[in-house]
């Protein structure tokens, strides 16, 4: 395999796409399985496309080149009291904004206001014919044209190469408070996730921890309100308020995936809380670890070794094994849409 191409402008990115019959974009490769494709595919690194090109704090929007590291974006937003509400993973590992969009990886904080799909506004991308196109918009509200930016969430770079992305952001809540609610098993966890998600508390994050023995519940908002809400929550679900430093470490460990096996497969799943107990059993059978997030709607599974099935569709982010377990069936229209955006199959298929 040759060294990746390294465009440093959007025009060079388009030229790079046109330069080879088979190409795939890569970022910092923090989810390397997603770009572990056949050796004849020319890789295009977006790391030279680095920087926030527009940031308007009073618009709640920013635009950044696809290879911009998330940590740079988060730091710039923080200077103005704002944050990425979809709470991306692998911030300190160097993950890029483009790679995060392609992987469709939203973190625990997405519970409150939604994930990547709820904050992506616009995208400049290179289609399979090598054209640099801009779809969506740069303002927080826009209904012109088909919503291709949203389609790209989780598209694994198989329908276009991202050059520049525009997102909506929000003001960072003034304070956070994390509760640790011990649970006996996955059934007990499911009950808490379901009940808390429907309650009046406006929870910021609601996760079953990889240790499998507790639910972590994060509140975010004005400092004066949080202890009052926490007190009520603790009367319903026994547990403790974590010290600020402990809470920060807990969420940072989850965000940076420090709980996972180093060499085994790491998989992402979409689920509902009702599917959680069965998944927990399957993971335990394979001596794996499970982090359930978004109130039981998403999960990351880390395994010591590849397995054939988790009983639900799963996407391998890193480690050995096939890209998909129990691959979700693609609608027949998928092939036509692929042809529309990539008529010469310049990008690999979703299956590989």
């Amino acid at each position, binding site marked *: 395999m040759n060294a990746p191409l390294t465009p440093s402008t959007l025009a060079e990115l388009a030229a790079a796409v046109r330069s080879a019959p088979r190409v795939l974009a890569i970022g910092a490769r923090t989810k390397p399985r997603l770009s572990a494709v056949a050796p004849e595919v020319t890789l295009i690194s977006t790391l030279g496309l680095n920087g926030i090109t527009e940031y308007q704090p009073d618009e709640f929007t920013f635009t950044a080149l696809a290879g911009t590291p998330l940590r740079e974006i988060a730091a710039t937003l923080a200077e103005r009291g704002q944050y990425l509400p979809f709470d991306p993973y692998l911030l300190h590992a160097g993950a890029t904004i483009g790679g995060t969009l392609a992987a469709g990886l939203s973190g625990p904080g997405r519970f409150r*206001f939604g994930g990547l799909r709820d904050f992506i506004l616009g995208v400049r991308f290179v289609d399979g014919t090598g054209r640099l196109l801009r779809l969506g918009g740069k303002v927080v509200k826009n209904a012109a044209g*088909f919503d*291709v930016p949203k389609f790209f969430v989780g598209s694994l770079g198989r329908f276009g190469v991202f050059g520049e992305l525009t997102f909506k952001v929000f003001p960072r809540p003034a304070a956070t408070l994390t509760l640790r609610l011990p649970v006996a098993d996955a059934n007990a966890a499911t009950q808490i996730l379901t009940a808390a998600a429907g309650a009046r508390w406006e929870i910021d994050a609601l996760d079953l921890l990889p240790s499998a023995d507790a639910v972590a519940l994060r509140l975010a908002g004005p400092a004066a309100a949080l202890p009052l809400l926490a007190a009520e929550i603790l009367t319903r679900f026994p547990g403790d308020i974590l010290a600020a430093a402990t809470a920060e470490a807990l969420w940072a460990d989850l965000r940076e995936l420090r709980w996972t096996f180093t060499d085994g497969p790491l998989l992402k799943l979409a689920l509902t809380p009702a599917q959680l107990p069965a998944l927990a059993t399957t993971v335990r059978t394979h001596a794996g670890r499970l982090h359930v997030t978004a109130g039981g709607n998403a999960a990351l599974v880390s395994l010591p070794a590849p397995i054939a099935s988790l009983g639900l569709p799963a996407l391998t982010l890193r480690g050995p094994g096939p890209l998909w377990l129990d691959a979700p069936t693609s609608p027949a229209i998928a092939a036509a849409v692929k042809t529309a955006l990539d008529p010469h199959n310049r990008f690999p298929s979703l299956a590989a």
Partner: protein
Amino acid sequence: MSSTITSVADPARFLRRLGEILPPARVLAGPAQLAAYESDGLTAFRTAPLAVAVPETQAEVIALVRLCHAEKIPFVARGSGTSLSGGSTPVAGGLVITLNRLNRILRVDPAQRLAVVEPGVINTAVTLAVASYGLHYAPDPSSQSICTIGGNVAFNSGGAHCLKYGMTSNHVLGLKAVLASGEVVEFGSASREQLGPDWCGLFVGNEGLFGIALEITLQLLPRAEVFHTVLAGYRTLEQAGDAVSAIIASGLLPGAIEIMDALALEAASAAVHAEYPPGCEAVLIVELEGPREVVAAQRPQLDALIAASGPVEARPARDATERAAIWKGRKSAFSAVGRLSPDFIVQDGVVPRRRLGEALRRIAEMSRAAGIRCANVFHAGDGNLHPLILYNGTEPGALERAEILAGKILHMCVEMGGSITGEHGVGLEKRDYLATMFNADELDCLHRLRDAFDPLGLANPGKMFPDGTAPALAQHGLHPLEKAGLISRE
């Protein structure tokens, strides 16, 4: 590159086969029956379709679409016909498929906080059906008491709460649809997470060009426990705009931030007998919402910001009745403008929020120069303008002059870095402006996507893209339902 219908359709044979799918009572083809379907919320355009089909089941809708495909007859799906961009204006020689009778709420899952509904379900019916669980469906277009979820999905409808909660698209978890080819697809799931590309996201906002949604899985949110709603009057629009900037800069995230100008206030106060602070050029409505402890902590901050912004008067709603009255005045503003003028165009453009003041000044200048009155109601939190351009359709050339002003406003929005539509969609009305936002390659890409879903170009042709036959402009007044006070425009 646009799709074209490649062979000559046979309307007589089509109608015969239509009769094999639906009983005669549910096929409307007489001139009097068709008249009610000639236009939608964009009353300036009207076209009589070949026929109107009234299916009652998903199977019937699928059969109708497959028939249209086999016979190469264009079709337009229609809910309550409230589109303000002419999205459900019929196509001459085509079929209108009304979905109002597919109005079943198929499933409510309070534990997973979702509802599965058919496309003809009315927007507010969803919230009514789930209110007993303490849940609600967030998107709230002003026509929500009559518009349907199917139409909301097709046009990615917005409302007053988009800054915090997003548009329809952000609340659709899954859907089943019949595509223009007759293929039935299922996108998304009951989960709030997805694997692979976001098919649901691509489908929502397709403006009826991909197919017809048959079943929609909607995410529900816990209903906010308490609200703090403030109405503040200002001497100038600028002051109201500055107040918005101060609120945004403060780190608060209100559920809604709305502004109405003097002309809109005049209309609203006449229509719903709302009393606004006298002598104001603008009224600002700001609403905080959330758990009582959170709102209690944020309320003094908001009140102080508003007090410091120099209002003539600031009135916090003291109870639910006062809050409802504030919103009633706001949501009735559009149709209330009908009291000021026999006809009006509701525009829908977006500008960057920081340029709202400049945009309003320029609209006022253009309106003065054209000698056309223009009322403004807008979602200030997200820069979404709704200029209401008043004209008298009985005056020769008045509609054309109003359309010219509307076009200038849209060009201004694009020039400022905004959009030609925030929530009404492109539809028929703005199809000629799509090219102001996208270049030839980008339009080609959108066309290719449309062709992927609808190779024959049968699904709602003539909308979004500047091709297809344009229906005639008609000089007439309010939508019949609007006259009856049943719907309002936003």
